[in-house]
């Protein structure tokens, strides 16, 4: 698989799976990420402002599962996370890397229902 092409992350969810409940909303700290295991996949969940975001936890540049531990912020109006390894900044909404053209992390669907955070993985078809 190649996640270095942004057609992949832009593609709408091909094979939709069900939503998996992850944890109560209050377990997500404001302006910070956490990692979650969803169907054996590592997902980085972020709560920034009043929005939720989910990306793969794998830093595609550094190769370690650490994105959830990056600093959350904004660039221009875009909500972002900076990899804790080498500080590349990613768009939380799309997973696109704002510093390296052509680099992106897969994003996943996330929502909050009845105080419960749920994730739906998007997997390559």
């Amino acid at each position: 698989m190649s996640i270095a092409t942004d057609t992949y992350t832009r593609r709408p969810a091909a094979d939709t799976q069900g939503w998996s409940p992850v944890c109560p909303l209050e377990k997500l700290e404001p302006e910070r990420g956490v990692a979650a295991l969803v169907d054996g996949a590592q997902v980085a969940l972020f709560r920034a402002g009043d929005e939720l975001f989910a990306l793969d936890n794998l830093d595609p540049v550094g190769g370690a599962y650490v994105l959830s531990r990056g600093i959350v912020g904004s660039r221009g109006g875009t909500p972002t996370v900076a990899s804790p390894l080498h500080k590349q900044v990613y768009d939380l909404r799309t997973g696109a890397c704002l510093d390296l053209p052509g680099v992106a992390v897969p994003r996943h669907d996330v929502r909050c229902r009845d105080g419960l955070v749920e994730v739906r993985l998007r997997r390559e078809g």
Partner: protein
Amino acid sequence: MNGDTTGPGTAGGDAATGGRVVVIGNGMVGQRFTEALRARDTDRRWQVTVLAEERRPAYDRVRLSAFFDGVSAEELNLHTPDDGVELRLGEPATAIDRERRVVVTAAGEHPYDAVVLATGSYPFVPPVAGRDLPGVFVYRTLDDLEAIREHARGRRVGAVIGGGLLGLEAANALRLLGLATHVIEFAPRLMPVQVDEAGGAMLRRYVEELGVTTHLGVATTALRPGADGAVTALELSDGRTVDAELVVVAAGIRPRDDLARAAGLELGPRGGVLVDATCRTGDERIWAVGECAAVDGVCHGLVAPGYATAEVVADRLLGGAATFPGADTATKLKLLGVDVASFGDAHGTTEGSLDVTFTDPATRSYAKLVLSDDAKTLLGGVLVGDASAYPTLRASVGGPLPAAPLALLAPAGGAAAGAGALPGSAQVCSCNAVTRDDIDAAIAGGCADVPALKACTRAGTSCGSCVPMLKQLLDAAGVKQSTALCEHFDLSRQELFDVVRVRGIRTFSRLVAEHGRGRGCDICKPVVASILASLGTGHVLDGERASLQDTNDAYLANLQRDGSYSVVPRIPGGEITPEKLIVIGQVAQEFKLYTKITGGQRIDLFGARVDQLPQIWRRLVDAGFESGHAYGKALRTVKSCVGETWCRYGVQDSVGLAVALELRYRGLRAPHKLKSAVSGCARECAEARSKDFGIIATDTGWNLYVGGNGGFRPRHADLFATDLSTAELIPLIDRFLMYYIRTADRLQRTAAWIEAMEGGLDHLRAVIVDDSLGLCAELEAEMARHVAGYSDEWRDVLDDPERLRRFSSFVNAPDVPDPSITFAVERGQPVPAGRARPVAAAAAPDGEAPARRRQPVTLGLPEVRR
């Protein structure tokens, strides 16, 4: 002129053909000549031999005194090896045989097609009785300075004969060596050549306040030996005697023209090798540059005119038509911490010239401008105490005044206003002959800051006094040198620090709402986190603050390449009991951690998962360890050498001091990490001079060094204060650190901070020693608060379930270890298991394939040869 051995252009060695050039002298100007010739001689017409009397290649004589500030001989070096140049060290020329066209040395003969005399000057020593006694020195070479330092050991009083520029510089050196210092000057004022009477009086007040005793208007009549045969006293022409166990003679210099004289070349009216404006002697094959040259009869004792002669001869040897442009005798110096500048016709010797003088006893500054009779043209001037207007004024000599005289002289006023008003032809950097037009062209060509201007025009790379003006010209050109932290704050770190401190702001959200915009980012958030921590506002992981921390601070451990963390307990001073060593070993064994002794004299345990960190720290804290803050921009280690307790050379308890310092400053958050070391004697086994603050023991106390750095751009620390008692040392370090924390930029180590500081080390001394800003008490109080408020971050986490909650790999599976962290075994220890290279690396921005490969280390296996 006499003695032309060949007619113009008759043999090899003229401009067209080149040949062999022998350079006599490898001082500052000889070196510059050689470089200039090599740079221009692209088809290698000249083969260069350099004969050097000194055993060292050329060094920066202008900065010679920095040697006593701890700058090493290597750092002063100016010479870069060049395979087109044969440098013969320690082989002085003894004669020039113009008949046979050879330069003679003790080792042999060097045939020439051209000779460049660059022999410099020798110090003039008045013919007084006792001038050859041991303990009497001159001040010209590194060897001289080494000898002075050696002789000063264990001695208490020194004297300098001569109160000029060089004499005062030598006096400062003796002070730095810890000697009570006298200056004896024949003229009725200090620096008679550069400053006038009133300026001299102001200077004298400064100098005497520093504890230097001046004796003006008297001559030294004899030097007297003591029982050991070395000098012990000076007799003065007024009948008085001054006790001194070390004497430096700085009574002027004389050009070294003996080779030329013996070769029958003509000399200048006051000595020096007579040359015309092309720097050629009467013999068309022989040239002279630098201090030994009497250009049209006048010798110049400064480096800038010397460099100009070097450029002229390099040009001429390649067929150019350069002539000596005339000398700028302007000088600006920091003498004993006092700014002194003199430029142009400082004494008002021009017909009908007018003086404007300005004396301000409050700021203790004196200034004089010499104007033409119509008061429109600036001819020269003298500044003492505050020389901030110097660069602008010097560049304006001979032209219209950039502003009204008083506006120019008012403290700090005119300088900035003035630079923009300079004419294009004004020389901004006189050391390197760079005009305002040159600078403006460089700016137009894209230079956007001072380093770029330096690289592109060479301005500011010698004495540095024009650097402020480079900044002003950038400003004048509308190049904004932004200090904004990032897109979320227009303030610099220093301004943010003040806002937070003065307004008592305690949260990032309030700060960004009131003084910034947006959500923050990985630049401003850690900065604010650090500022809040420096101000002692509670645990770094409490409340909103947790979200500001870089991952290292967020988990109080260092993130590794595989997503695991390392653990570094504090081992103050590197001293550890066997019991504690055993605990570290047991913890490493139990949690299967890779174990390594760090370069900071402590032990690093690698490969811990987030969820293991609290368990590991529970064990460590119970055994009496605390956080080593290896993860923080904070105090790291205070390294020590074993010191007087065991070492046969040690003169103080270096381990004891290192431990005390590490415990005092542990947990102190700063703009960047802070490192220190204490050595028990001058052998310096703890490498204190590579630290942000380093301490080296002396027989009677401690020497404090600041601003050292290892790492990316190594820099030796500067000697800041000498022979301090422990009680004197601590408040100085307190102030130093707190002033750094308040004013440095983000991620600026102390070395870069001091280098960027306007006024540099002297400013720093003024602030934290002389309390020029009235800050000292505040800084000390802040440090006292830090010391009193310290508690171990890891213990505080273990004691608090709320904080502990964060240490799990997965929010929905706290008990599942991170499956991506796996290990292989290397040399008997766990290491991150090899994993395929991450995919995205293939998409590096420039499209290059990732070339980096780990090199297998297979010592012992035979190499495969083809």
